[in-house]
């Protein structure tokens, strides 16, 4: 495919602009607080890793970091487990109310979260899921399961039905066919879906903060602690901010090839 001659330059300029605010935050995280507020400079004059030492030196900081990673992974696994059979059903069969059910599932992504907070708080407390990793993982299924079904259904519809029929003739039962033949065929779809579940669960704060207090508190919620009577600890805030980006960057690196390939075989 042809590309315009200047496209390359413009693209990398765009990427540079995209990185600028993130790099600026990184720059703040490695400067002492008096330098941040005292003088404006493009390049930090004094470099310190005190903020990072503070972060990893305090249990409450890094345990909330781990909490986020645990519930996010749990959510991705659980969303996939319930979404896979459903997506298969939508892509292969017609059944009573299928179209309505599909749209209804999608509408759950559209619920304004602000008002769900209070019912969530009450329900999770009454069933004993309050402040647990499992609780947050289940709550995040609200928006991840519909999305997972939607993405997977697209991929699965791209796989010819003849494969199912051939397997049935060969004597495969549906569960065995699904696990042994079908799942390996949509590996990249599963990768892409897991990536999206991870992403939306990782970036969500409002619900996660409401149904946790200590044991499962997400990292993003811990960041409010940097604001105290003495003002904002900009350095530490920036440090926590930088560290919340790291797991995401690692995950993208692993699924980078699936993103393009995966989508291509799906919904297009």
């Amino acid at each position: 495919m042809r590309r315009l001659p200047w496209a390359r330059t413009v693209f990398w300029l765009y990427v540079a602009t995209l990185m600028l605010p993130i790099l600026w935050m990184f720059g703040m995280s490695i400067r002492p607080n008096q330098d941040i507020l005292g003088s404006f400079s493009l390049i930090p004059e004094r470099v310190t890793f005190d903020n990072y030492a503070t972060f990893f030196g305090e249990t409450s900081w890094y345990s909330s970091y781990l909490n986020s990673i645990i519930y996010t992974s749990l959510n991705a696994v659980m969303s996939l487990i319930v979404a896979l059979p459903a997506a298969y059903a939508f892509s292969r069969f017609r059944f009573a109310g299928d179209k309505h059910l599909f749209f209804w599932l999608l509408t759950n992504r559209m619920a304004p979260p602000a008002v769900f907070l209070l019912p969530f708080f009450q329900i999770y407390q009454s069933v004993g899921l309050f402040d647990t990793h499992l609780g947050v993982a289940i709550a995040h299924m609200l928006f991840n399961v519909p999305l997972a079904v939607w993405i997977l259904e697209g991929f699965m519809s791209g796989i010819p039905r003849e494969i199912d029929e051939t397997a049935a003739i060969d004597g495969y039962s549906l569960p065995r066919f699904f696990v042994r033949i079908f799942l390996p065929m949509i590996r990249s779809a599963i990768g892409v879906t897991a990536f999206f579940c991870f992403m939306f669960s990782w970036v969500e704060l409002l619900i996660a903060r409401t149904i946790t207090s200590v044991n499962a508190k997400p990292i993003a919620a811990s960041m409010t602690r940097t604001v105290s009577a003495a003002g904002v600890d900009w350095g530490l805030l920036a440090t926590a901010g930088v560290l919340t980006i790291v797991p995401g960057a690692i995950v993208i690196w692993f699924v980078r090839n699936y993103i393009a390939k995966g989508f291509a075989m799906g919904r297009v």
Partner: protein
Amino acid sequence: MTDQTTVAQSPSGAAEPAPPPAEEAKDARVDPRPKNNRAWWLVLPVVVSVAFTAVIPLMTVVNYSVQDVFSPSERIFVGLEWFREIARDPEVRGAFVRTLLFSAQVLLIEIPLGVAVAVAMPRRGVSVSVALVLVALPLLIPWNVVGTIWQIFARGDIGLGGWAINNVLGVNFNYTLDSTDAWLTVLVMDVWHWTPLVALLAYAGLRSIPQPYFQAAQIDGASAWATFRHIQLPRLRGVLTIAILLRFMDSFMIYTEPFVVTGGGPGNATSFLSILLSKIAVGQFDLGPAGAFSLLYFLFVQILCYVFFTVLTRSGR
């Protein structure tokens, strides 16, 4: 099986009557999928999990919306009173117009920009991986951290962006005092944050176009623009449907990022529906009006999404 269907549909509020038999018959002709109601067993886990996370809380909200709650034991049924009050409230109307305007601007900027970025993206070599990872990075940042990044970046004293506008361009820029500056900061933040999603979806769409299409275009001597307009753009319809829907929903419900950056201010310049809603629900603890508000809000988003979805999926056939 049929009663399960009803159970699943009715709480959503968007359920419609079953399609007339004529449509069913027409579907059967074009749709090769066999009809099998046992497929309900496969979707059952999804229905159960979403029922727990969505339907029960939604029912609670419906319950609030028709009552005046004085205390857990004292409640009065007030019917649709709260709905009328919310629909007439000038503050809600103001926030509604602002949110709609914001979503419109977001879609108008992000969709073309995202497609342009996807077209310009490298296609071969290591630079593909680097480009994908860097472009996707803003999407993996927790939303309040996105707010924090821009809160810092746009400040005139310690942020590069704000500092550059004030000192290099010489324009007085302060997003905590000026309404236009606050609006622009939130808008630029959203474009920064979400254009990558559109770009990635569009890039995946472009990659799926078979090479012979381009060879044919080259033989015909088609210009780059003609190639884009007649080959690439039509093939992007599917992914752009997803992109437009996702971007509309999420921009219309934007909360965390502007809350961190501006807190809805200055005045109510960036007070979007969700910010106003959580002020009523969590700040003032007016559960009745908040319940009615969120149901109307939810309904509006659903209707618009349904319209988008129908228009976008039908236009290509």
